[in-house]
């Protein structure tokens, strides 16, 4: 029996200048199914979805939506045809209420009060029908991330979406919220909504999709029924060769503790406690991974350890020095006592996009005597140093004068890692080392982290990717709402138990998140 097709793409191509973002892509999505699209960064999946959503127009090929030929000029037309998109970064106006956000663009009249009651009724109906409960009059800024995502889905449904595209929806969710999302998606599927899920998380593909399509380098390389394939199979299709999903590492040889955190409390800029009275140690020669969904205090912890943020109470000992007693406490001093820091958000913190690579290579080490005399900084010496770094970490292209922003994500990250590793620190703080990095580079980076650990460094690894944490760390600590809710040996850790620890705090008190009532 011929299943009816919600979307049919035939040989769709899209160029950006000389770059072929999509090269003769063909895809068929059955109506009423959940269809996954996987690929590395730059594989072209986001571009493809943007074309479907009307953000971009395709150069060649055909698109049929529910059997109708389509060439959407803007998102309005795509919406009219029934395609709705939930973006990775939410398209919400934070100071507005949920109702106002949903009404935006569909106000129902020149005066807001004209359309308000209709919108309210319709929203309530949709929420009930699909089990998407949310407080309509709450300000979006006060909602948890999971709830905000629900608002995004509601927005699409409100506009009559019959096809829902979700772009990397679980990156910001806890495992529990992810389960909740999957429940919602299944409920939508039962109601006949077609769902396209863009993700790089293979376990999600296996968990919820009916079919999966794999993209690589702008081309569609394979379609599979999810029930007939495996994670290893898909990974190999994504990269074009067999991929090691686990890091090869020997046992750790552990020395004395180089990071000692005691009863540490850190407040954020608004005075709210973000790290709540935690204590832990990282010894030389081991990798301690901190698992947890972002927003649970990891950033504040890293900022406190690296000297960026001030501590409220407690103590931190780095390399034997109690930094809370001695002054000054700033990143420069931390580097002096042997600490290096790979930041979680490299674009925001770790590099300057408009600087040439060699200037980014000096970031944080601009006072280094290797290229500074009393008054002058030798650009030649910095350049040479950068070339050395690029050699050591296989950064491509090997051009110290190229603007930092023009390197690919993986190469940017490798340059930053090279910078921090090559100064031979005793302690390494590493945040999200493989965010936005291709699978090939991921292997490389993980290997280097293990190498530092084997050389006797103390490594603290913060990541939202549980697989990464489990495979790279020796010990795993879990952070939830500013507290350490669990400690497990990596060899004994699994995603389920970690997931549980990531969502409940010790004291059993209600968390800050307004999760309880609709």
């Amino acid at each position: 029996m011929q299943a009816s097709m919600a979307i049919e793409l035939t040989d769709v191509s899209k160029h950006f200048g000389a770059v072929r973002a999509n090269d003769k892509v063909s895809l068929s999505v059955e109506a009423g199914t959940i269809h996954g699209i996987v690929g590395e960064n730059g594989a072209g999946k986001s571009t493809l979805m943007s074309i479907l959503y009307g953000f971009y127009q395709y150069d060649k090929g055909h698109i049929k939506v529910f059997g109708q030929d389509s060439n959407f000029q803007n998102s309005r037309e795509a919406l009219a045809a029934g395609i709705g998109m939930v973006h990775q970064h939410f398209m919400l106006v934070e100071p507005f209420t949920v109702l106002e956000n949903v009404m935006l663009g569909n106000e129902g009249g020149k005066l807001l009060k004209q359309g308000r009651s209709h919108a309210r009724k319709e929203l309530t109906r949709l929420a009930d029908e699909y089990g998407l409960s949310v407080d309509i009059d709450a300000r979006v800024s006060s909602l948890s991330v999971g709830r905000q995502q629900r608002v995004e889905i509601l927005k699409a449904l409100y506009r009559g979406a019959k096809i829902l595209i979700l772009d990397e929806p679980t990156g910001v969710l806890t495992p529990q919220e992810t389960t909740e999302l999957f429940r919602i998606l299944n409920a939508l599927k039962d109601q006949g909504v077609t769902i396209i899920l863009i993700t790089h998380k293979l376990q999600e593909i296996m968990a919820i999709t009916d079919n999966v399509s794999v993209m690589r380098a702008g081309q569609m390389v394979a379609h599979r029924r999810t029930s007939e394939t495996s994670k290893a199979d898909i990974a190999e299709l994504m990269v074009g060769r067999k991929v090691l999903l686990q890091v090869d590492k020997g046992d750790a040889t552990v020395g004395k503790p180089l990071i000692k955190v005691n009863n540490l409390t850190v407040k954020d800029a608004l005075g709210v406690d973000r790290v709540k009275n935690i204590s832990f140690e990282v010894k030389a020669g081991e990798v301690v991974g901190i698992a947890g969904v972002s927003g649970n205090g990891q950033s504040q912890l890293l900022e406190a350890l690296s000297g960026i943020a001030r501590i409220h109470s407690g103590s931190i000992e780095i390399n034997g020095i109690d930094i809370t007693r001695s002054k000054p406490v700033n990143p420069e001093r931390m580097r002096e006592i042997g600490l290096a820091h790979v930041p979680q958000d490299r674009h925001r913190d770790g590099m300057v996009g408009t600087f040439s690579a060699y200037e980014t290579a000096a970031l944080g080490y601009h006072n280094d005597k290797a290229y500074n005399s009393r008054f002058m900084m030798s650009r030649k010496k910095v350049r040479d140093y950068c070339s050395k770094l690029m050699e050591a970490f296989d950064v491509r292209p090997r051009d110290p004068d190229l603007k930092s922003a023009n390197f690919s994500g993986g190469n940017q990250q490798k340059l930053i890692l090279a910078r921090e590793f090559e100064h031979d620190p005793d302690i390494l703080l590493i945040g999200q080392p493989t965010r936005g990095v291709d699978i090939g580079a991921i292997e490389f980076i993980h290997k280097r982290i293990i190498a530092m650990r084997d050389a006797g460094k103390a490594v603290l690894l913060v990541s939202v990717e549980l697989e990464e944490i489990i495979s790279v760390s020796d010990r795993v600590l879990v952070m939830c709402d500013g507290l350490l809710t669990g400690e497990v040996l990596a060899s004994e850790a699994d995603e389920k138990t970690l997931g549980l620890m990531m969502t409940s705090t010790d004291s059993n008190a209600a968390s800050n998140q307004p999760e309880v009532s609709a």
Partner: protein
Amino acid sequence: MSQNQAMPFWMNAILLPLLNLLTAFVAIAVIFLVIGVDPIEATKILVLGAFGYEEGIGFMLYYTTNFIFTGLAVAVAFHAGLFNIGGEGQAYIGGLGAGLVCLTLGQWLPGLLVIPLAIIASALFGAAWAYIPAVLQAYRGSHIVITTIMFNYLAAALMVYLMVNVVREPGQMTPQSAEFDSSMWLPAMHVLLAKFGIEIESSPLNVSLFIALVAAVFVWLFIWHTRWGYQLRTTGSNAKAAVYAGINPSKMIVLSMLISGGLAGMVGINEILGVNHRLLLDFHLGYGFAGIAVALMGRNHPVGIIIASLLFGILYQGGAELAFEMSGITRDIVVVMQGLVILFSGALEFLYKPWLMKLYLMMSRNSAAKEVA
């Protein structure tokens, strides 16, 4: 995914600014036509006024000196991510500093000592006038554009008060100080060259031009070849990365504004020590704002700034000549030209970029095709 294909350096750094400048001139020509002036005639007068005679060239270079100072001032602040519109006030107060040193210390110190002290004073006073807006921006988040503009007005009020009530020569009506003893004058260029047997027409041009050029070299070295310049540029490009790197953005904001204010203040060296030899009102008018145009045209780089300063010197001197020769034009024409340059070199600086890109791509495709054939 965006068109980050780099245009060749010469297109970006030379052709594009040139096109912007041309557009500004075309706009000026249109304005000339509207007020009943023949643009060709006007251009002739302008160019002749600047180049046609020795005195004109002297005046032109004298203006250029001021523009180099204020252009450098704006550029240094830009590199730290700040918009210093207070050059007018900082130049005014810098001149005050130079003049006060001459009037007070000049009583009992020899000229040879007074001059360097006055030079330092003009930089210090200019820096001091930039200090408060800098601190307010760095530590209170007060919009530096508004505060520096306010400080321009405050400088004007302060100077009027001082000239009328404090500094004025007793018994005189004009609000200005007594003339300094000639030992405290910076030698004028025609005087200096005469010592080497070269005769040129007298003009306000004086040795402060050399000081300006030295300042340009200093800025170039500081911004790109020292670790403080590195910290400044990092703060201006990505303040969060600066924090990560152990740089204190607040300190960098204040440092950059102090240097910026100091550079603008050095206009006082030219005006007070080099030209007027007394404290007076309104010697600073227009140079601070012109500095913005100069910095934008010169892409915030000392070499570009010197070239742009020359251009503006031509515009100023030519403009003065125009106002002199043609009855319908006042010196405000120069303000209009400045505004147009800022508009086309600053706000609309990428106006022609899409066309140039297309041209470049077409050209490179053609040459690639030729290579294959």
